[in-house]
């Protein structure tokens, strides 16, 4: 018998398994299912290591930083081509952002949303998540259209927020989709929204939560701690915090000036292309270690680095 006995936690709960795709001809991807904190294999199973999603926009993302635009090149022009390239570069799933539906970025309607979603769904066989512009009424409008279009393919639809969860949740029930529930960096708010969504009848294995990502240097520590708390709560048996977690790492990370700009920043920040990539990678890894089940990334090199880290964490 060894002298040093490592204390093991006897967790009574585990994270819900949620499957995206896997029906309607779409490839399935199951996330969640952890019975321990991330990668503590000496204590419990992590049946599905975290998945890596690549973000695709229905606009050509002209405001994106240079390293991103260079990496994606012509694919930016078409969400279908973009998704296809993302699949080739190793994405486990595709996240389509309907940016053009935002009232200030085109205010496009359900038809355009359907067109973009159709392109992505046709281009790849991977599971797909479609996110609206995060303007509640607008989200309802465009996501309903996409929901009907993809009925039965079990895509993810986001976001359900406190103001509009009823409509999206109802549509997920009707068309067998998964709802993404987003709340602003707070354990209680996240749990409350999960309860409200469950109360309207959407089953807990069709909910993924987005606790709101803060990038490195921009609130990362808040997201990190809220996710640790959510995960700990799930492991001690709280079913209303036991949903898998989804983090928009790329979007948040590349929005910051450290990632966006090569010029006009202090020289002590070093080279832009190296710094910006590491910025996205550190944000992703921190949140993976805090319990993220899906990280949504932007740069192909980050995808490689994060996938390698996940492999090495699991190994």
């Amino acid at each position, binding site marked *: 018998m060894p002298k040093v006995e490592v204390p093991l936690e006897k967790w009574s709960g585990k994270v819900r398994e949620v499957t995206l795709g896997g029906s309607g001809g779409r490839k399935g991807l199951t996330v969640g299912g952890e019975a321990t904190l991330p990668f503590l294999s000496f204590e419990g199973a992590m049946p599905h290591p975290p998945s890596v999603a690549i973000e695709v926009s229905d606009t050509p993302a002209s405001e994106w930083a240079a390293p991103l635009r260079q990496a994606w090149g012509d694919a930016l022009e078409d969400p279908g081509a973009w998704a296809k390239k993302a699949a080739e570069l190793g994405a486990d799933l595709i996240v389509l952002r309907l940016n053009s539906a935002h009232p200030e970025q085109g205010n496009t309607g359900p038809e355009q949303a359907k067109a973009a979603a159709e392109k992505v769904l046709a281009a790849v066989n991977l599971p797909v998540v479609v996110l609206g512009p995060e303007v509640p009424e607008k989200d309802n409008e465009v996501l309903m259209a996409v929901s009907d279009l993809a009925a039965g393919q079990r895509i993810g639809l986001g976001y359900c927020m406190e103001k509009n969860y*009823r409509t999206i949740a109802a549509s997920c029930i009707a068309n067998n989709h998964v709802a993404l529930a987003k709340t602003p960096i707070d*354990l*209680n*708010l996240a*749990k409350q929204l999960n*309860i409200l969504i469950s*109360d309207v009848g959407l089953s807990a294995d069709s909910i993924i939560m987005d606790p709101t990502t803060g990038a490195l240097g921009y609130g990362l520590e808040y997201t990190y701690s809220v996710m640790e708390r959510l995960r700990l709560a799930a492991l001690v048996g709280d079913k209303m915090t036991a949903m898998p977690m989804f983090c928009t790492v790329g979007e948040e990370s590349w929005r910051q000036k450290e990632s966006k700009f090569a010029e006009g920043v202090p020289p002590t920040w070093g080279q832009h292309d190296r710094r910006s990539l590491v910025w996205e990678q550190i944000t992703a890894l921190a949140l993976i270690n805090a319990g993220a089940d899906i990280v949504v990334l932007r740069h192909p090199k980050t995808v490689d680095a994060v996938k390698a880290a996940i492999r090495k964490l699991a190994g």
Partner: protein
Amino acid sequence: MSSQKPLHQVVFAPEGRTVRVPHDTLLVDAAAQAGLFIDIPCGGQGRCGRCQVKVEEGLTTHGESPYLSRQQMAEGWVLSCVCRVASDLKVTVPPKRERERAVTTASRKAAAPPLDWPVSPGIHRFSVELSPPSLEDPTTDLERLTVALTRRGGFSSLEVPLPIVQQLPVTLRRGDWRVNAVVEQGPTPERARLLALHPGHEPCPLWGLAVDIGTTNVVAFLVDLESGKILGQASSLNRQVARGEDVISRIIYSLKGDGLAVLQRLVMETITSLIAELTAPRPADSAHIHSVVVAANTTMSHLFLGITPRHIREEPYVPVTNRYPVVRAGELGLPLNPNAAIYTIPSIAAYVGGDITSGALTSGIYKTPALTLFMDVGTNGEIVLGNADWLMTDACSAGPAFEGAGIRCGMRAIPGAIEDITISSKTLEPTIRTIGDEPPQGICGSGMISALSEMLITGVISRSGRLNVDSMGQRMGERSRVRRGDHGPEYVFVWAQDSGTGKDISFSEVDIDNLIRAKGAIYAGIEVMLKSAGITHDMIEQVLIGGAFGQHINIEDAIQIGLLPDLPWERFKYLGNTSLSGAYNVLLSREARAKAEEVAGKMTYLELIADNSFMNEFTAALFLPHTEIDKFPSVKVLLEQGSQ
């Protein structure tokens, strides 16, 4: 199967109507068969207590209810909407009025203040007769009096105020060397002070005044210091209200120009008017008031004494003092015996004042071995936790919602205020009760709690307090009480034609949010304190509720919305206006005064602003009844039943 159930005979008194019904029939259904229609406003869920009947003989099942006291249950009272027939029965159905009153008295048990110490106010009256001076005995008037009184009272020294000395030759001679002297015992029994001197041996009463200066209301007792009897009670709006509704506004007002002096004058005017009311019709009698005890929150205490409250508001929230000097009525210009001592009960911290010290004294929390939670619910929720061994306190700002402010149809608890609401879970139609049975004008704190609880249990609102206008609207049809109003989604309690104001009385989502925030702040204050002390809910042996508003809260409703912790209802007890009760005790007993000081010194104040866990607990409490439903097992059961 049901046809095989045995039949029982049920006789309903006083009419003597008789029916035969199968075993397990609800009493309310049996009564209906007998032609007696008992209202069940809650839709028959045992939630409103309006359908009480008394089982005189025979067996029933499922009759227990938190709406009935133990004694009522022992007497045979049951709720007919949940109670089932289990044998032949004799049942008395009281008339509707009486059923209503039963509910009212059960939920409004205001107690007269108990006196926990023997009467020893430290104010004595001595009738003495002096020998007149002569050439053989040329002692001065004052020395003559002093010697007689010190001998009589056993003091070693007697302080005599100058105005009494100035009047002395006249007083002594007018009474033919017989006087009644009112003497105040000093901090040590040997030292004393002469408060008043009356010629002759005519009766002169010894009165005292106990005052509770609330931010909104000022209440006073006129007390006979010899018998301890309360001679009168008066209350009035604090005249400072015109210069700001809450303590923060008052503090800000006090900082401008002569604001402090104005506020002090206004509270003096308020107390003066109370004294006039209490001594009517002979205002001159106020000179018989020889002692005053004031209980007030820290800001009110400061303003009363003309001390700036400025630093109460600013970090690090330090008042000028928690212990207040004793002043004489003459210094403050109150129309009493100018020598009367005014004692202000010590505070604990910026937001936990002498009213709470006073409340803790009344509640007995400082001497019980039982782990006790004492709360005073008002604009601020103050909480004291502990027992004879230790005491901890904190305060959270609930805001004025429960007092009717910030709620569109909110009002104070005066006649015409809706104080209780029941919503039928079948039709979603409300049944209301107003104070004084007058036409509804608005809704007061207890009504709001009742409304929120009913809306939650019947599914009118979600657990986050949102109204589902579409589905509820569909369900209620054309004249839906759930609708989109001018202030967003709302639920209408009273249609314009039935209201005393000629307008609809309703609750909007914004009103609901404000209420949820108020209850969340108080509950979070409780949780943070329990956590800092390492106490779990089940360890709390009793919850004592003080404050003028506290006594009107229905505990079931308050638990259902998550204002009070979900503990067995026997553990809750209302104490009424504990601040005034404490002041009354301190007025009548020097021992109680010493105890108040000891208790104030013993309380450990927990600063919630310095505690980030408060925000977390607060957010968790901004849900109905709470994000952690397992903290409210009884509500969980109700909600699950509701959703089925």
